[in-house]
């Protein structure tokens, strides 16, 4: 394991502290743990909270700021934060308009956020939540855990955050957040694994000519492994799955080419070159493209493609001002 760090036990805390020291005008850390809130609390709006395990930077702390989140709670690497931390976050940001939690669909995340919501509701705070589940690599089923929440979650932060900033009600912000969830799909792949610091070695292995298709953002196994193909072929493989899941034809979309952490921007642009042509050929209109590291998996090499189906409401909110450490619009 080759990492820039001091001691395995402290990576999450030092990371959060290093982040807050970099952006003191944007964010501050609560004393109770790895909980980041806006430097200046804004009243009169629905407060947005998200979070999850660490290791997905800039998610979620990087998205705290005007037009996006009010709070991000960071658990241990790849491990959901605990209810008490989330509860402290909720209390710090709650306004009389209520709190919306944006939770990625993992058993642990959902349970911990639910427990925190119960605690906050006990205090009389109005809490609702959406669960993001954009990963088309896994089957969606009512009888199982359903799909994983991955990079598409960033679109929920952006758009629900913009809606909240308008002073809309909790129901309205929840509706818009759910609309994003309903219209965004993602699929990813990996060339190399990632290493949880506390584990000290990679979570899986891939041979020199192998890739994993449909990988999760915690290095969870995907749909299958195969020999590495060209960037164009890989892009088509993922896009075929995404566009088979919901109907994008004739629609406008926002595209996110999300790097997993160790992927050079050069490669993400090469991928986007094909994604653009594929969508254009299918008559899907690209409204806006985001290329970069938005929801990473520590030092994994790989990427995901997210497509968000837009309508005029979502377009307007996507274009609204955002001023956070990792996302400026």
């Amino acid at each position, binding site marked *: 394991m080759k990492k820039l760090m001091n001691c395995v036990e402290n990576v999450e805390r030092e990371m959060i502290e290093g982040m807050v020291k970099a952006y003191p005008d944007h964010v501050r850390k609560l004393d109770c743990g790895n909980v980041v809130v806006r430097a200046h609390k804004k009243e009169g709006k629905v407060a947005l909270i998200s979070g999850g395990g660490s290791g997905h930077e800039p998610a979620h702390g990087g998205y705290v700021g005007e037009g996006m989140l009010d709070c991000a709670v960071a658990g*241990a690497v790849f491990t959901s934060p*605990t209810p008490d931390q989330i509860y402290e976050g909720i209390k710090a940001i709650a306004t009389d308009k209520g709190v919306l939690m944006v939770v990625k669909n993992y058993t642990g995340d959902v349970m911990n956020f639910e427990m925190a919501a119960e605690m906050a509701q006990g205090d009389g705070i109005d809490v609702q939540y959406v669960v993001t589940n954009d990963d088309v690599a896994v089957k969606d089923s009512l009888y199982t855990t359903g799909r994983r929440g991955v990079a598409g979650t960033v679109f929920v932060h952006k758009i629900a955050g913009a809606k909240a900033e308008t002073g809309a009600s909790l129901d309205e912000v929840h509706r818009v957040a759910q609309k994003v969830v309903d219209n965004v799909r993602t699929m990813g792949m990996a060339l190399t694994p990632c290493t949880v610091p506390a584990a000290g070695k990679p979570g899986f292995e891939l041979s020199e000519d192998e890739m994993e298709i449909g990988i999760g953002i915690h290095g*969870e*196994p995907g749909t299958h492994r195969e020999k590495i193909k060209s960037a164009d072929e890989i892009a088509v493989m993922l896009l075929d799955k995404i566009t088979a899941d919901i109907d994008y034809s004739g629609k406008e979309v926002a595209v996110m080419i999300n790097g997993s952490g160790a992927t050079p921007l050069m490669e993400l642009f090469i991928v986007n070159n094909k994604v653009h042509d594929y969508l254009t050929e299918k008559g899907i209109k690209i409204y806006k493209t985001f290329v970069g590291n938005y929801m990473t998996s520590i030092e994994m090499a790989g990427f995901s493609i997210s497509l968000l189906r837009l309508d005029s409401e979502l377009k307007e909110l996507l274009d609204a001002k955002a001023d956070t450490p990792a996302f400026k619009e």
Partner: protein
Amino acid sequence: MTDSKKLIDIIQKISTQIQMDKDYLTELDNVIGDGDHGINMARGFKEVEKKLSDFSNKDIGSILKAVGMALVSTVGGASGPLYGTAFMRAGAAIGAKNEMDGNDFLNAMEAAIEGIKMRGKSHEGEKTMLDALIPAYNAMKKSYEENNDFKAAISKGVEAAEKGVEYTKTIIATKGRASYLGERSIGHQDPGATSACLMLKVIQSSL
């Protein structure tokens, strides 16, 4: 069967065992999950250990609740709320006693299982910790009712839990991270069932 002092000793031993098997549990979670179960549990029980000295004057119910709270607020992930709820419910079921017998243990265990089911929206056969705990509970209850011998009962429980762990290899996960794998989860044992079985084994060998 046990008093507060003995309970504290058992909890200490469970923690030692979890620390020892940290890598093993993580390794199991690598294959069908996200490779952190051992890390999570070890972190949680280290925190529990730190609190052991505070427990010495407490009743059994309070101790178990405090263990549950410590787990909830340090483990994270899926196992944190689940084991946390389990210990808290167990504590609530036993209440302010300073001694517990086999019946108390079984009542507490039943409450713990109900807590996991409620929190996890899960039941037997979904390739989770429940697949160790529920068969263990059933076997213990049967044995204890027949012989009124807790040592014999816990042996039966461990036996059933081990079988349950083996059984998790044969089924598809439908809850937790492993469920994302679908059929690819077959052939691999569940980390949470394994950690649950480990705890029962420690109880067995501590009595």
